[in-house]
């Protein structure tokens, strides 16, 4: 083995802690990459393959009833390649307990249809036969409820009880990601999609050949924008309520958002951690080079060239890169399967695999080696300047012998003890090292605080939503529209209903100039108490007498402000009316356009109607009473859906708890990064001060007094890191929240105080741990050995 390599290996072993910490930071990068890159590369491909093989539609329409003849004519529209007409309805599953609010969306399935759009892949069980009361269920629901072929499900459907046999489980491009109505989180136990033979559903709905759901696939080269007008014309006779593009389809848009997130994780995070590791690494190397200045002088005196010595120091970085690759590779191989499983449980489609790719890890390992070597060269670049003669004198501190800033304040400076002066000068003299460490610490702080802000923010969002905004206990949706007053009175007559407010919810397109947005309109009673609006300062917003209320996000996207006029395009009844933006509000889990019920009726020329209602129970309602009410609502003929807020909140809470795996992993890593950087700063300080600390101990300073020099220096760095970290945290959070926001989902970008506390605690915890290690090292140092030689 070359002698210099031996030296390198011994040097690394001597400062193993410091180098290991660098390597681990880099290893986190390799780990992320190794474990996620396969999923990231694989998901879009799997998605595309699934889409084309199972003919995922380009446009979707919901209507009242489109006669079969009209459906045929749709194929003749220019640019349309294929059309599938289906019947859809909602039903509730009756379980053993009456409070169950398990919902199923029923979709008709014609066993005879050729090349059906949004086809299903049967993963378990058998295909459906015409005329049988059997259903294929989406896999998530099927598994979450532990079903097997042959099981029976009893449904409450339009006031009737029906029994269906479970035929099997399916996957479909239309429901890769399934969420219940009005929710952003999957809830596999309580919501799913069931495919039912067409003739059965036709009979149940008395549809007589008409369809209420149409999927359209375009010929290559056609876009939704181009075809929209002609599709509306062709579909309007069927009472079109909503026409939307694939981009706005729930499963597709969620999947795309997630792919985007994975893309970021794979491309940004690994490089971030490699950089962080490299930063720390260059500091360690720089220090080591300074410490070895006598050796370097000697090597030069022997005739080594500056480049040869630089090459020698690059070896350290390569060693660290190697350690990082191995650690990251092993950890990645161990976690890849788990990560793929996690994704497969949220996104139900064939072909998500997370086999660990050594080839890809090798790519990143090369990058890690390059980063390591680069960091070493950067840290060691000073050796080129050094001459053999300089080895004979104590190293001149980096900042030269110029007085540091504080020294100018003589009255203050004179008050410091010599040890404090020592710490302060160390800090200010090794400026570039301090700066790098400072930056690293602040990044870690921001990362930790932002990651920890996430879960409280989501909790907060739910809290706001379920206690401040949605103040009702139940929300029902009707099959057929009803008169508002009559509906409220009917509901109030049921025990233990204390308050009922009828609402109208309509699909809607907003237009402002050339920009349009598909969304929904929610009309509330003038003095609504069960649904309240808030602005971004959490102040209540009153529902204006005339005009609509938009979310800030929506207003931004449409480029409108309060007082502007926009066009409301309501498709059923087909109306297009101008409306004034009366106010703006914040909505975290929805993006309703809100208005006053009477304002809506004036827009629709006096028609007063409700599509549903919000219900508040009496405060002393008993469990039995509540259960009976839920049962009555569920079985009522005109009730299409019943949403139990408590249940929704509970479900959402549980889901958030379990679905934040990635965030928790990031939090653990951020805390780890804090430890690595703080510890490393300490090790560096310590190794460069060994001689001074030993001298101090010979002079008679105690172990504690000696350690204090290091502790103080580090503490100053940490405090500065936290200060700089504060603005970084806000920016990080803003970026994270923005990258995750969508039409129906916004995360407040505030950082709660508690996550700052967490982050500060993490930093100080790291500091204390590092101090303990260092104190032990100081105690173990053999004074006589350290001091007998020259450097």
């Amino acid at each position, binding site marked *: 083995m070359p002698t210099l390599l031996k030296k390198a290996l011994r040097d690394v072993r001597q400062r193993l802690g410091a180098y290991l910490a660098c390597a681990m930071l880099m290893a986190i990068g390799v780990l992320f990459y190794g474990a996620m890159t396969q999923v990231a590369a694989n998901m879009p491909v799997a998605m595309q393959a699934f889409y084309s093989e199972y003919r995922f539609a380009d446009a979707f329409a919901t209507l009242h009833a489109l006669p079969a003849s009209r459906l045929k004519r749709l194929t003749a529209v220019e640019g349309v390649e294929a059309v599938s007409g289906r019947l859809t309805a909602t039903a509730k599953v009756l379980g053993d307990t009456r409070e169950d609010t398990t919902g199923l969306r029923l979709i008709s399935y014609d066993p005879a249809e050729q090349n059906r759009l949004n086809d299903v892949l049967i993963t378990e069980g058998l295909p459906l036969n015409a005329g049988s009361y059997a259903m294929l269920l989406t896999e998530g629901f099927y598994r979450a409820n532990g079903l097997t072929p042959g099981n029976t499900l009893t449904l409450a459907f339009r006031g009737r009880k029906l029994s269906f046999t479970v035929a099997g489980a399916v996957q479909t491009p239309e429901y890769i990601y399934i969420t219940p109505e009005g929710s952003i989180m999957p809830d596999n136990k309580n919501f799913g999609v069931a495919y039912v033979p067409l003739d059965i559903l036709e009979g149940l709905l008395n549809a007589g050949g008409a369809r209420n759901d149409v999927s359209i696939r375009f010929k290559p080269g056609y876009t939704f924008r181009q075809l929209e007008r002609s599709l509306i014309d062709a579909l309007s006779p069927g009472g079109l309520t909503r026409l939307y593009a694939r981009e706005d389809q729930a499963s597709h848009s969620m999947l795309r958002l997630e792919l985007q997130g994975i893309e970021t994780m794979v491309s940004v995070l690994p490089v971030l951690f490699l950089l962080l590791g490299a930063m720390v690494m260059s500091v360690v190397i720089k220090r080591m080079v300074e410490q070895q200045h006598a050796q370097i002088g000697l090597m030069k005196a022997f005739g080594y060239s500056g480049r040869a010595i630089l090459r020698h120091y690059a070896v350290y970085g390569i060693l660290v890169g190697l350690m990082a690759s191995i650690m990251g590779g092993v950890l990645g191989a161990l976690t890849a399967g788990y990560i793929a499983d996690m994704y497969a449980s949220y996104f139900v489609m064939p072909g998500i695999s997370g086999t660990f790719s050594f080839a890809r890890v090798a790519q990143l390992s090369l990058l890690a080696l390059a980063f390591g070597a680069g960091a070493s060269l950067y840290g060691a670049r000073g050796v080129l300047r050094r001459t053999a003669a300089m080895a004979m*004198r*104590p*190293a*001149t*501190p980096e900042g030269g*012998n110029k007085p540091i800033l504080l020294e100018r304040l003589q009255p203050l400076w004179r008050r410091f*003890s*010599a*040890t404090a*002066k*020592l710490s302060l*000068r*160390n800090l200010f*003299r090794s400026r570039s090292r301090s700066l790098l460490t400072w930056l690293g610490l602040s990044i870690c702080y921001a990362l930790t605080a932002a990651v920890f802000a996430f879960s409280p923010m989501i909790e907060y969002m739910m809290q706001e939503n379920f206690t401040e905004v949605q103040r009702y206990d139940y929300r029902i949706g009707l099959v057929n529209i009803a008169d508002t007053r009559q509906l409220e009175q009917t509901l109030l007559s049921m025990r233990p209903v204390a308050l009922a407010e009828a609402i109208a919810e309509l699909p809607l397109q907003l237009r402002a100039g050339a920009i349009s947005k598909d969304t929904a309109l929610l009309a509330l009673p003038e003095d609504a108490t069960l649904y309240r609006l808030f602005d971004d300062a959490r102040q209540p917003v009153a529902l204006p007498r005339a005009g609509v209320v938009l979310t800030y996000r929506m207003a931004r996207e449409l480029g409108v402000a309060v007082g502007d006029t926009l066009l409301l395009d309501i498709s059923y009844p087909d109306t297009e009316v101008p409306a004034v933006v009366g106010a703006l509000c914040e909505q975290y889990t929805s993006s309703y356009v809100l208005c006053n019920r009477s304002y809506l009726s004036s827009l629709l020329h006096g028609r007063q109607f409700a599509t549903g209602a919000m219900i508040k129970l009496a405060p002393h309602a008993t469990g039995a009473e509540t259960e009976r009410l839920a049962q009555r609502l569920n079985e009522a003929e005109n009730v299409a859906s019943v949403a139990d807020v408590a249940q929704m909140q509970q479900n959402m809470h549980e889901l958030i708890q379990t679905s934040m795996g990635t965030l928790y992993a990031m939090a653990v890593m951020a805390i780890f990064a804090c430890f690595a950087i703080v510890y490393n700063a300490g090790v560096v300080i310590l190794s460069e001060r060994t*001689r*001074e600390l*030993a*001298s*101090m*101990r*010979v*002079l*008679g*300073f*105690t*172990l504690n*007094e000696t350690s204090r020099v290091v502790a103080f220096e580090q503490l100053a760095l940490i405090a500065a890191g936290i200060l700089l970290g504060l603005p970084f945290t806000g920016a990080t959070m803003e970026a994270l929240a923005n990258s995750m926001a969508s039409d129906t989902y916004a995360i407040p970008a505030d950082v709660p105080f508690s996550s700052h506390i967490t982050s500060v605690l993490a930093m100080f915890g790291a500091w204390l741990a590092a101090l303990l290690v260092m104190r032990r090292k100081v105690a173990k140092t*053999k*004074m*006589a050995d350290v*001091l*007998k*030689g*020259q*450097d």
Partner: protein
Amino acid sequence: MQELIRGIDIKKIYKTGDVQVEALRGLSITLYEGEFIVILGPSGSGKSTLLNILGGIDAATSGQVLFEGQNLCAAPERVLTHYRRQAVGFVFQFYNLMPNLTARENIQLAADIAAQPFDVDAMLRDVDMSDRAGHFPSQLSGGQQQRVAIARAVAKNPRMLLCDEPTGALDVQTGVQVLRVLRHFNRDYGKTVAIITHNAGIAGMADKVFTIRDGVIAAKHRNAHPIPPEEVAW
């Protein structure tokens, strides 16, 4: 003369792997108040080891070191620290100054922790470094650094100065300067000074000369008429 410190049957064994080095093999020695002592001996004979043990920065494998009735070899770290702080001033061949502190601050550092330190500026005058007080070690010559190191050791007002080859890295002229400073502290402040050296000429300055060979004292010699530093033959 008053006894200052006494080492009895000191043994020191270094173990590195399978190899054992017996640096001290049952050495006994007594230092008295106000003495000027020179320790001679071939390289590797155990001089530095002895001085380190007497100064409380290394531990003997067996034997006793008695200071004011207390056995330092059995003393806890707290006592050793106190001993180093109050009783001992160390001077090394390679100065070991704090590179980030000025000459004055290096001395201040020691004065800060002593019970009855000498005035820092007086120390600077004593070693003739007043005009260089604000300079950092990297701006000083070897002899100047060594004078600061001696001033730092003395500033604590210790009972003894232990110097391991204090002139080893210096030329004749600066060597004499350094010896003069040490002599000054011995004579004018009454401090015990012990110097390890390879330069037999320096032995002429001493009240007492110990010669160490193979880890034991091979010879002890008393000087009736110590010579001044200027007359030392190099």
